[in-house]
């Protein structure tokens, strides 16, 4: 009997369940997709170093999954709560007929289990198919070979998904049992009758607050796009964020009142069809839902920004790699080791540290012609010349402001002719210097910003007992060590005449290309220090030597950006679902409250078409407003993200990622919009 009742109820309120069901299905599908990454075909076809990165990513994703599970769990409980509230009256009738709380709990239990199993099945099927699609995407990102397509099913991910969702359903069941245990019959019977207080705001305040909000937002936008150089530490960055939040709140608080006032002046729009009703509905509702609208707007903003800037970051990292890694390999060795205090080296190591890298390699049986275009230069360190010293009399000022920088770090110094040899190999600009001049090479913008302030004041440096003045009032863009992002915090270039002693050499630096046309991987294996190769052997002897190779940089660049991108998409989608669910349920709750208003509209002569159009407009505006403001925020937010990510991205790269973001958002947000519209239509349609 209870079974029959439970199923009949569900069949009857299938449209009410649509949001709940949609959330469960999407939740399951996404959960499966991201937890099945490891067994995807693309993952099996990638190189070894990429494989390690993927393993790291999967570990991070599984931690993120716990967070996601909590968010989804809360959403599901929230959505479920909405459904239970909708049916208070129904339960009230059962209770008057003599049904006990336990039996009602049982009905709800049967329903929850039933809908849970169905949504788990549908979600898993959807997830399995979607993960095949994602496989293609993953393959493209990791440049894996996907010529032979195979259908993959991850048992582990499936079991994991089932366990997580079983726990969530359990939470829902417990929550329901608790809710039912607190039911009072009189409240259930009268559940539909409650008086809503109408709050109307003075239009004068709406205008003032709206202007205030707009100005604050405008100023925050201005700061993050046009005054970015002032945003150098945390409080600086937090200020526009805080302003953004306050501005958003203020705008949502006053928006409807302000527009009501404006549109009332435009009689042609105001007095047309049901427009005035729609306007009042929105005005009324926004007044009662300022906070949730603002939260939704900010969540959407985060989704858009995170998604599009992380996708763009991936693209531009690839490009950076090309310009920041002009040669195949760099080898760097500590030179002229000094024994101080406890640090004692082997004699052989000490001797070796006086030799250039190529000599060391040859001594250990390395064939010189494996490499071509070899350039080797010494890098000097001068006792007492550190970053703090470089800043001169401005050191204290900066130390106060940026406490986290390493002011004691020694500055690297190289000779101009040495640099020019490297520059020639890299295909970069060569420089020349007068006897008393120096240049600073730096491409890490935050440090360059600090250095520029010093350089522009004509900072004099004492190097090897001689004074030097800066040739340029700013850092020059450049680097020695190849890299996949702009990481050079500063190298000082001095004239050849500078009195640099051999003992001042701290490192030998070698740049070269592999002497081969097609089999770079083979040489890479000889030098990357990962396997049993010459670099590893040298290290085992205690020689401090390391390499940077273009191939490993490419792999890690792909890896880093892929990790970021996957986590961003994962979280982005969850944020999106969360805000959509909240918005959708808010609307549906309102629709049941507003049922009476639509009945009146129908009574005074609105036909169904008009009613539906009115409802569509109302819900459309409700979904559209946070999205609109989120998009405006994002236009500025993305620009700011580009600056923070520091040259990782350029604007043309953004377009494709924005398009992908829009498609993704359109699908999820759109589904919820549609479900809400249909659900509301169903609610207001029911005529007793």
């Amino acid at each position, binding site marked *: 009997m209870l079974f029959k009742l439970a199923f009949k109820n569900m069949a009857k309120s299938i449209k009410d369940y649509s949001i709940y069901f949609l959330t469960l299905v999407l939740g399951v599908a996404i959960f499966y997709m991201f937890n099945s990454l490891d067994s995807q075909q693309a993952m099996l076809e990638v190189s070894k170093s990429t494989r390690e990165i993927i393993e790291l990513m999967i570990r991070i994703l599984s931690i993120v999954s716990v967070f996601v599970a909590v968010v989804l769990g809360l959403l599901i409980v929230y959505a479920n709560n909405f459904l239970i509230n909708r049916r208070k009256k129904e339960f009230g009738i059962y209770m008057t007929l003599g049904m006990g709380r336990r039996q009602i709990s049982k009905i709800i239990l049967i329903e929850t289990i039933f809908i849970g199993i169905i949504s788990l099945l549908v979600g898993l099927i959807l997830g399995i198919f979607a993960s095949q699609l994602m496989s293609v995407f993953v393959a493209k990102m990791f440049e894996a070979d996907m010529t032979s397509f195979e259908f993959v099913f991850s048992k582990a991910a499936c079991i994991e998904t089932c366990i997580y969702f079983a726990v969530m359903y359990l939470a829902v069941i417990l929550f329901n049992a608790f809710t039912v245990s607190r039911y009072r019959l009189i409240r259930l019977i009268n559940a539909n009758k409650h008086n809503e207080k109408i709050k*109307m705001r003075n239009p004068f305040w709406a205008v003032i607050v709206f202007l205030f909000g707009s100005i604050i937002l405008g100023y925050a936008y201005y700061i993050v796009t046009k005054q970015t150089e002032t945003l150098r530490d945390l409080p600086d960055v937090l200020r526009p964020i805080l302003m953004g939040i306050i501005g958003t709140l203020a705008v949502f608080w006053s928006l409807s009142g302000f527009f009501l006032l404006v549109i009332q002046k435009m009689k042609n729009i105001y007095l047309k069809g049901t427009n005035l009703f729609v306007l009042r509905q929105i005005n009324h509702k926004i007044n009662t839902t300022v906070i949730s609208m603002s939260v939704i707007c900010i969540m959407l903003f985060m989704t858009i920004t995170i998604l599009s800037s992380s996708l763009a970051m991936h693209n531009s990292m690839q490009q950076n790699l090309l310009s920041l890694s002009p040669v195949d390999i760099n080898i760097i060795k500590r030179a002229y080791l000094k024994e101080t205090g406890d640090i004692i080296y082997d004699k052989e190591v000490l001797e070796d540290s006086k030799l250039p890298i190529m000599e060391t390699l040859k001594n250990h049986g390395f064939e010189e012609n494996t490499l071509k275009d070899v350039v080797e230069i010494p890098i000097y360190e001068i006792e007492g010349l550190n970053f703090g010293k470089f800043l001169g009399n401005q050191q204290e000022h900066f130390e106060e402001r940026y406490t986290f920088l390493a002011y004691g770090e020694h500055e690297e110094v190289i000779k101009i002719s040495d640099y020019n040899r490297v520059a020639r190999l890299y295909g970069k600009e060569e420089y020349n210097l007068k006897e008393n001049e120096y240049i600073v090479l730096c491409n890490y913008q935050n440090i360059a910003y600090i250095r520029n302030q010093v350089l522009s004041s004509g900072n004099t440096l004492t190097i090897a007992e001689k004074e030097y003045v800066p040739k340029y009032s700013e850092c020059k863009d450049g680097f020695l060590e190849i890299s996949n992002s702009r990481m050079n915090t500063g190298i000082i270039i001095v004239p050849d005449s500078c009195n640099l002693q051999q003992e001042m050499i701290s490192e030998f630096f070698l740049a070269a290309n592999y002497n081969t046309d097609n089999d770079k991987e083979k040489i890479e294996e000889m030098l990357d220090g990962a396997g049993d190769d010459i670099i590893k052997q040298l290290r085992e002897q205690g020689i401090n030597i390391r390499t940077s190779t273009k191939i490993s940089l490419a792999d890690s660049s792909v890896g880093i950006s892929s990790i970021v991108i996957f986590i961003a998409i994962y979280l982005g989608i969850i944020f999106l679902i969360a805000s959509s669910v909240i918005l959708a349920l808010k609307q549906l709750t309102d629709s049941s409250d507003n049922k009476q208003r639509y009945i009146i509209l129908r009574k005074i002569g609105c036909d169904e078409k008009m009613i539906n159009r009115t409802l569509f407009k109302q819900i459309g505006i409700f979904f559209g407003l946070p999205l609109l403001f989120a998009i405006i925020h994002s236009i500025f937010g993305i620009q700011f993200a580009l600056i923070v990510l520091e040259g990782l991205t350029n604007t043309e790269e953004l377009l494709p990622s924005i398009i992908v973001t829009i498609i993704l958002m359109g699908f999820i947000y759109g589904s919820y919009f549609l479900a809400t519209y249909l659900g509301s239509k169903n609610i207001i349609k029911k005529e007793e």
Partner: protein
Amino acid sequence: MEKILEIKNIEKYYGNKTNLTKAIDNISFQVQKGEFVGIMGASGSGKTTLLNCISTIDKVTSGYILVDGEEITKLKGNALNRFRREKLGFIFQDFNLLDTLTCFENIALALTIQKVHSQEIEKRVEEIAEKLEIKDILKKYPYEVSGGQKQRVAAARAIVTNPKLVLADEPTGALDSKSARQLLESFEFLNQNLKATILMVTHDAFTASYANRILFIKDGKIFNELIKGKDTRKDFFEKIIEVQTLLGGDLSDVI
């Protein structure tokens, strides 16, 4: 006199062959322009079904209903909606004002959904508000005005579209006696001063006594008809009570 409403032999059946209920059993009557007609009957007598059929919410099983010369039982879709919007005005048991709209907007809404031009809307709302003496509360919300004012706003909304026929379903059903009197007085005003044709369904003798003519319905048939004529309302009320006692049915059922 112009015939606003003409009902010819309408019948309305519910149920199926084995269990047939005749909610309306062959009713015919006419309403002339400017009349204030009351329809009385106990609950279950078929009076609300009759009103629903006239207002096209429900369909008759057989017979014809002509409003302003137009046969409405065969209307469908848009034509039906247009007919309801343009020819009929409704006044409800509870005033059915939208709480989120100002009084002005509540009245204007009846016109905007008829796609009346925006300048004309303002003019017409002001006009009717002046006649019903609610001009100074137009900017207020329903919760800010008294019950009597609310009723006049509802009446203004029903009449502002210049409907051929105003239909009122138990208009005093949910009111205390003072508010009921106020509403009925505004009905009288609409009828006498604005020449509105009103058809009112009620089971309450006092409410009915404001009408010019009363049709009594029992078991889906017209049972009696009373015309006020030159009577005072008090006399008319007494006559209504008499008929009601006769009609009551309750008595014969007891025996």
